[in-house]
């Protein structure tokens, strides 16, 4: 079954750009305001008003397009896309048609768990347009009216359209995650899916072989995908649904031809039911009757400006992963965990690694202990109780033998609680190195007091020695459990 068809997926991502004001007017873009309190004559489409492009919105769009390896044509313009919908007060959306601000880019995806081969997903174009409003329909009220809130109308939106280069739900998810990470690293959007800052539609169809003929099933566009998980589930559902539909329509040839000639369909994902449902047929693109918006001036972007934007880009996630691998010796998985947490955590890690000179141990502390505490406290790295300098000190103290690794976690907890450096924590815990002869004396004493355990070990039950470790820790908290075990076994072997 898995080889019966290939799932072909293209994604359309809409990302709200993090400006203070809207794309063509100066109303606030703040999320969560009372309905219809952030509108003005421009964004609600009053006659005689004129839109003026938000410079910051264009700059953020440009930064994103460059980060996505797109070409930036020197000349770009905006067009009117006409359709009637209650959340679109002007009766047209200002978008870009034949001369988008960027095209022909790519985003590379890989999977730390190796479920698919790393690949380059090509990007057809990224263009800057305005968002529509929201219609709120109270299901409980049955046939009641829908309420329209136009606060969102005119919020700058970058539409990023991929080539149909993905072949599984896992690849689609990886693309979205990498996209979100990139957008967050370059600071162009908060990418909050719950608040609709990042939205996604998926185009899905199947390629299969029928009696030696290559078949492509009609493309379905899936909407209403409100989480990455929903994207994955919807693609998996849709692939299976299309395969079943194909099987039902593949014979006789007449039925097949009719099925394959169907136009592109729009289906909505119902997350609760776990199914896609047919929606209104998509109007042909010519029906949008695009024409250049006469109210807006075109934008000309020279090559040197693009170059300046490129040079000003921060280090991107892919480059950062590579640096963590090459310069810090981290494996793909660890590098991925760190980078996915965001730049602030990576900077913390880099400071610990550089400060301690032990990048592997630094990685273990950060990805295990630090992340665990952050998760428990539901906080972020900038609020974390142990400074990078102090954690580096802790790693170093372990490496120098000043702090036994068996007590390192205790020291970490003290440092976390009071923000102290490792030296203070060591003093507070009364940690001192126990030299081996003192430890041997302690072990002899314990063995003499526990003849039963000695006998058990001599009978081959090595695990019996475990009981002595607890006793040793009680007598001297600085006793290294591994060493106690080793010495006891040695002494018993020598006949005490």
């Amino acid at each position, binding site marked *: 079954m898995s080889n019966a068809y290939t799932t072909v997926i293209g994604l359309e991502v809409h990302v709200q750009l993090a400006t203070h004001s809207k794309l063509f007017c*100066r109303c606030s873009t703040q999320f969560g305001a009372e309905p219809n309190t952030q509108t003005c004559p421009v964004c609600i489409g009053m006659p005689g008003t004129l839109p003026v492009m938000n410079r910051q919105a264009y700059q953020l769009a440009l930064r994103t397009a460059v980060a996505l390896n797109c070409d930036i044509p020197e000349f770009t313009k905006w067009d009117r896309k006409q359709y009637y919908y209650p959340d679109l007060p002007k009766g047209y959306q200002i978008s870009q048609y034949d001369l988008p601000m960027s095209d022909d880019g790519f985003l590379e995806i890989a999977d730390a768990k190796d479920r698919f081969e790393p690949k380059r997903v090509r990007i057809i174009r990224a263009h800057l347009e305005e968002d529509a409003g929201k219609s709120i329909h109270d299901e409980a009220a049955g046939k009641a009216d829908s309420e329209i809130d136009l606060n969102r109308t005119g919020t700058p939106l970058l539409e990023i359209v991929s080539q149909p280069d993905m072949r599984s739900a896992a690849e689609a998810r990886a693309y979205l995650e990498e996209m979100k990470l990139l957008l967050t690293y370059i600071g162009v959007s908060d990418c909050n899916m719950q608040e609709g800052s990042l939205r996604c539609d998926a185009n899905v169809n199947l390629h299969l072989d029928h009696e030696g003929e290559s078949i492509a099933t009609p493309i379905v566009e899936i909407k209403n995908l409100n989480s990455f998980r929903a994207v994955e589930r919807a693609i998996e559902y849709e692939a299976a649904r299309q395969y079943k539909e194909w099987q039902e329509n593949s014979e006789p040839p007449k039925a097949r031809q009719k099925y394959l000639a169907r136009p592109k369909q729009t289906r909505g994902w119902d997350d609760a039911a776990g199914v896609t449902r047919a929606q209104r047929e998509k109007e042909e693109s010519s029906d949008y009757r695009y024409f250049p918006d006469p109210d807006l001036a075109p934008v000309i972007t020279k090559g040197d400006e693009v170059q300046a934007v490129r040079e000003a880009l921060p280090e991107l996630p892919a480059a950062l992963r590579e640096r963590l691998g090459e310069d810090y010796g981290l494996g793909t998985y660890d590098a991925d965990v760190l980078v996915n947490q965001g730049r602030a955590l990576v900077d913390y890690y880099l400071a610990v690694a550089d400060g301690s000179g032990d990048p592997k141990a630094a990685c273990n502390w950060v990805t295990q202990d630090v992340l665990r505490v952050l998760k428990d406290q539901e906080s972020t790295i900038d609020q974390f109780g142990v400074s990078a300098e102090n954690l580096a000190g802790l790693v170093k103290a372990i490496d120098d033998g000043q702090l036994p690794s068996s007590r390192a976690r205790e020291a970490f907890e003290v440092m976390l609680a009071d923000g102290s450096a490792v030296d203070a924590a060591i003093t507070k815990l009364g940690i001192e190195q126990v030299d081996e002869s003192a430890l041997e004396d302690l072990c002899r004493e314990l063995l003499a007091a526990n003849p039963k355990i000695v006998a058990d070990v001599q009978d081959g039950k090595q695990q019996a020695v475990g009981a002595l470790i607890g006793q040793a820790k009680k007598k001297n908290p600085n006793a290294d459990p591994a060493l106690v075990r080793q010495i006891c076994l040695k002494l018993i072997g020598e006949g005490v």
Partner: protein
Amino acid sequence: MSLTRQDVEKVALLARLQLTDDELATMTDQLAQIVDYVDQLAEVDTDGVEPMAHAVEVANVFAADEVRPSLPREAALANGPRTNGRGYLVPAVLGD
């Protein structure tokens, strides 16, 4: 190039206009004249001429990203045919 009745029906549908048969006939005739008139431009030789994307020779007109006050909600909703004081009310929009 001349316009057919079907063309006008389609445009009327897209514009959400309901035309009577008489209106449709009148519109087809009048729109056809307009289109034919504009079509005279096709006689001009435009080989080697850059397509014009905008009527005015200006580019890069930007405004700073600074929030200014919006309309009071009452004023924004004032022209809505039906409102509940919070939002515009329209016939139920389901799905999509």
